């Protein structure tokens, strides 16, 4: 149900761009207005989300500790999984953000003849890391459309990306991996009953969108062989704020660009904000040193609790007869 709605939504978006360019000649809308609007929505939206989260304080040091704490000098602390200082936290966050450390722990539990077996399971981690790494490589490669002359690291990345040296134009791995990993993530939502049960339209929509983007992108490079010079003139125009439409860029390019625009605009309103949110996660980015260094809660307040005087007033006689010292005889 959720998948169908999302799939139809992406098809409609695709047709919208195709129709808009083919029959209504709305190149300016799809090539200039919408990309600008999308990128603005993305920047403002994401900043707004981050600022809003950051405005909520972190009242307590609620680190999730995944290793031995700092304790007696002869007991080896796990400085990364249970950090007690900024250095440990930094390394923990780098591992978390770049290598998906927590997901790497993933296990799969199975019940066999009344016995639970908990085995290691790295597929989700592998799919996740392939997806994200490919996505960022593809995104980075696209900088070639926005820089003149091309930045040096771009050459390097492209060379690495095409190291298999298949075909002409040379096959870039990242695009294939991106498509494959997105398909994997989609399939597991279809095939694993539990994951299907928890999936919302908001989980399928970005996947279909990204698959659409990857397919159109791959088609442009290898099938329709879109005129890269015209495309670059358009993209350079966008980046230099002197946008200009070039004839000779096919509809498929506009579909691609439109889906990308939708992705950017959709980003701040969706779960995709996990990209920035992960940096703020209090269970990961805090040192577990609550007994060593006082953590301040900005909204801390004094509570009215029962005092010893009230306690003794209630129990004084009983305390005295049990020979427990009291303040007031």
């Amino acid at each position, binding site marked *: 149900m959720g998948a169908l709605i999302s799939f139809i939504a992406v098809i409609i978006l695709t047709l919208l761009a195709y129709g808009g360019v083919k029959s209504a000649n709305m190149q300016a809308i799809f090539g200039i207005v919408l990309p600008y609007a999308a990128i603005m929505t993305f920047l403002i939206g994401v900043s707004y989300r981050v600022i809003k989260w950051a405005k909520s304080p972190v009242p307590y040091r609620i680190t999730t500790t995944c290793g031995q704490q700092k304790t007696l000098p002869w007991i080896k602390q796990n400085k990364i999984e249970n950090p007690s200082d900024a250095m440990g936290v930094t390394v923990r966050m780098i591992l978390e953000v770049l290598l998906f450390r927590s997901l790497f722990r993933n296990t799969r539990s199975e*019940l066999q003849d009344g016995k639970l077996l908990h085995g290691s399971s790295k597929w989700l981690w592998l799919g996740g890391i392939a997806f994200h790494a490919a996505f960022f490589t593809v995104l980075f490669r696209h900088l070639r459309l926005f820089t003149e002359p091309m930045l040096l690291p771009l050459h390097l990345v492209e060379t690495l990306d095409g190291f298999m040296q298949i075909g002409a134009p040379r096959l870039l791995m990242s695009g294939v991996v991106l498509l494959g990993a997105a398909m994997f993530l989609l399939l597991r939502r279809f095939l694993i009953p539990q994951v299907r049960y928890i999936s919302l339209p908001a989980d399928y929509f970005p996947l279909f969108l990204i698959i659409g983007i990857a397919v159109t992108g791959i088609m442009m490079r290898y099938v329709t062989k879109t005129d890269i010079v015209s495309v670059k003139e358009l993209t350079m125009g966008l980046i230099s704020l002197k946008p200009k439409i070039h004839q000779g860029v096919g509809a498929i390019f506009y579909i691609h660009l439109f889906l990308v625009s939708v992705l950017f605009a959709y980003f701040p309103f969706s779960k995709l904000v996990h990209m920035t949110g992960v940096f703020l996660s209090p269970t990961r980015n805090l040192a577990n040193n*609550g007994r060593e260094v006082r953590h301040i809660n900005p909204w801390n307040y004094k509570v009215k609790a029962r005092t010893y005087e009230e306690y003794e007033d209630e129990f004084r006689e009983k305390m005295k007869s049990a020979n427990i010292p009291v303040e007031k005889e």
Partner: protein
Amino acid sequence: MPPKLPKPEELANVNYKPPKKWWQKGTAEIKEGFWCFGSRPKYLQAVDMPNPREWKPTDEDWKLPDNWREIFLEGMAERLQKYRSFHLFMDICVRCGACADKCHFYLGTGDPKNMPVLRAELLRSVYRKYFTPSGKLLGKIAGARELTPDVLKEIWTYAFQCTECRRCSVFCPYGIDTAEITIIARELLNLLGLNTDWIMGPVANSYRTGNHLGLEPHTIKSNIDFMLDDIETVTGIKVEPSFNRKGAEILFVTPSGDLFGEPGIYTCMGYLMLFHELGLDYTWSTMAAEGGNFGFFTSNDMAKKLAYKIYSEAKRLKVKWILGGECGHMWRVWNQYFDTWHGPADFLEAPVSPITGTRFENAKGSKLVHIAEFTSDLIRHKKLSLDPTRNDHLQVTFHDSCNTARGMGIFEEPRYIINNTCNHFYEMPENTIREKTFCCGSGSGLNAGENMEQRMRGGFPRANAVQYVKERHGVNMLANICAIDRATLKPLMDYWVPGVNVAGVHELLGNALIMKGEKERVIDLRGEPLPGKEGA
């Protein structure tokens, strides 16, 4: 009468296939054996919490205030601004499902709403409806739900079907911690008077007497006196602790579970013997005779109120620092909340062991030292004479308590003590210990009697791992450092793995400890013959 508990074979037959019906359409089903009684009004009145009344979770009408929806939503808005964790965790979940089979309640019930992701979605769907543009605009398509009485009941059911053990947060790629979500959900429910009797009773007791059990000062003393008699029977040594003594160096605080009932009292006897043997200058406080904090299972405010007595008693008694006994959530609170609530503890001194001279650097701010840290330091410095053969009849395994594992990370200290006091120690499988430990299934105030099926199901993964080492190594003793574990693991073992006993680590220490001037020991702290002394 609590509902009848099905046989283990029936319970172990868990069906993980999700139902056809989509969860958002579901209504709250309050199943027998899965809920605790609603709090009696007197407990809520005792601590001035809202909406005291008689009610039962299975009643159609929960007798909520007319404006319950506004109270709940305003409470939510307030907490979104007060807790970044809550705000963030409402937004960034991608529903990857990595958490699903990490939850002991999911593994034990197969109920999809016990997958941490879905437990959170119950509240998240409400968040989307009232706090996000997409939810307001698109409603159901955006996964948003109206807050109806049924949705409220559903949130209640599953907020009290989570032990806040944080196992899921270990695996979550964004560190989303279901405990944070459950804690806030329970706070919101508390605004409407929706708590359980089993939690509110101890809270009210703890407010008045200082401890969950409601032990009055003279009873605390007489309970300990009984233990002293038993220690004398076992060792021939008369131990004489002090109560509310001013000027002692150390204040000792332990959960009140150690003062009442087996096997907690044996752990307590271990403490008493250890301190006596060291000649430690310490005192008990009859008011701060509870390290545990059931307030933590109601609201931040209540937890803070109940924690107040610890520092205030330390101040009144003019001690230098505080030593804490074996407890789970007590240490989560002491490690991650305490100093923030009631610090700075500048009236105390940075803790130094008077026996070894070790400075507890990791506790220099809050001045709260864990007894496993204290004792392992003693053993390391060879300050204790130990005879591990006295525990030779025990094949021991160790259960890491959720809170001390994932809210502190005290893994090696208790193991070091066990390895020095027992000759036969076996670890449970790797994915079921340390930070991946499985909950006893009864934490966070769920250790009542009427929800026994829920508890046995929740404890199934833990019990299963114990069964593994029992079959392989003949394990017959499940050691731990948590008072709730000591109370709940015993029935869990009796149900799933009969023949396995439960003990605190300091009970094992008490048995192995050779005390100066003791008589030849022939029985252990439980009054049972020591190995090789059966005829004596």
